[in-house]
């Protein structure tokens, strides 16, 4: 029975990794579409949504099947639970990438702006965070997962910065309010992606250490202390 379960878990592993790759590539393309004002690329991301959705449903069904048929325990149980939750976060990240792509379609029709919003930098950081946590998942690295939890602070800071810039810009050039709001909405989506990425990191720590670290200051505080990063 155990060999059967191990086979099922291996197959589940392949599925969740395929979904990770898909979502990561969607986010990369959505960000690219914003930066390059590329409507074709944006449309590709939007069209891909059904595929990620069905992959997410498949992963969940596989998890339920393993739980029902094999009653896994210990590391196997933690793996299934972590995958169930990571699966949901990945699906949400996929949705948010689609939202960004939709915003970028509208932005393509607006005039190009000369105001230096650091949306490109924020997008780049968000993408790297996602890549880092997915690599940590593949390599089972809880130290990397903890670093991801801390790294989210930078994305939040950039979001605040962009919101403040957008407010000022609207006052200065009210005619362009739509464009500014689209930019703010992209920043907001990126910030949410950062949060889902942190959730994945926390689930990864649970998977490896068997401890729930969500809603505890423990994860970030430790690394801040170690790195001398400001709280």
């Amino acid at each position, binding site marked *: 029975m155990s060999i059967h379960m191990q086979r099922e878990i291996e197959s589940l592993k392949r599925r969740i990794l395929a979904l990770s790759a898909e979502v990561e590539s969607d986010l990369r393309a959505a960000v690219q579409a914003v930066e390059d004002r590329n409507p074709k690329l944006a449309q590709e991301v939007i069209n891909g949504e059904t595929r990620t959705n069905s992959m997410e449903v498949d992963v969940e069904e596989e998890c339920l099947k393993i739980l029902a048929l094999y009653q896994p325990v*210990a590391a196997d149980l933690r793996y299934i639970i972590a995958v169930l939750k990571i699966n949901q976060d990945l699906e949400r990240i996929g949705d948010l990438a689609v939202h960004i792509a939709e915003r970028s379609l509208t932005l393509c029709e607006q005039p190009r702006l000369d105001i230096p919003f650091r949306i490109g930098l924020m997008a780049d950081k968000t993408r790297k965070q996602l890549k880092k946590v997915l690599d940590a998942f593949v390599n089972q690295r809880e130290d990397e997962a903890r670093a991801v939890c801390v790294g989210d602070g930078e994305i939040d800071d950039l979001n605040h910065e962009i919101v403040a810039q957008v407010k000022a810009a609207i006052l200065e050039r009210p005619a362009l309010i739509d464009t500014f709001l689209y930019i703010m909405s992209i920043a907001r989506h990126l910030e949410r992606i950062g949060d889902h990425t942190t959730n994945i990191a926390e689930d990864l720590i649970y998977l490896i250490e068997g401890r729930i670290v969500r809603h505890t200051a423990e994860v970030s505080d430790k690394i801040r202390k170690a790195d001398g990063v400001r709280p």
Partner: protein
Amino acid sequence: MAAPVIQIENLNLHYGAFHALKNVNLAIGAREITALIGPSGCGKSTLLRCLNRMNDLVPGCRIEGAVRFEEKDLYARGVDVCGLRKRIGMVFQRPNPFPLSVFENVAFGLRVSGLTDRASVNAVVERSLRGAWLWDYVKDKLGAPALELPLDQQQRLCVARVLAVEPEVILMDEPCSALDPISTAKIEELMLELRAAYTIVIVTHNMQQASRISDRSAFMLMGEMIEAGGTLGLFTKPTDKRTEDYITGRFG
């Protein structure tokens, strides 16, 4: 864990040249269910049988170390073994009622210990059968041969037989391995019910059974106690790699 009622300390057991238990330490909490798990031949039944000196009669069996029951060593000189087995009763793998009536099976231990007053015997038999959730099934056929009962009722009759002599601890050696899933569920429910008043130690091969019913689990391998702790912790995040390998089925 609850205050320990039994303390196993540096217990070593040899069957002739075979070292069956190697320096085993374990505390059994009062009014808790402790499950002993491990592969066949790991020594879990041997350990269970040490708790009421069932190994005494095995030829060539040699025991060192201590098993303290309420602070006193069971293996000290002058311990009344029959009295001990009343306080620490045992239910075996296969239901083994005596070839007597349902009533006489439960009354047997009472008669051995000298209780003859009919009304008192009747009262204890009824209370024990109720305690084992069997009364409603057998109250109209107390004179019927016990061996004609269905297997799970026979097993519950064996539990009632133990309860009759008012033990403090009940040892169960794979009590469900001869039973179907429905009967197993009944015995498990009974164990959870009995936990309110008795300390239970169970040997089981069934991981799910250990995780369903026990408060604490102890994993043994080749005569050694590898890991013992709260069942939830042991089945979600065992600390020893060998425990992990065994409970996830990667063993061997």
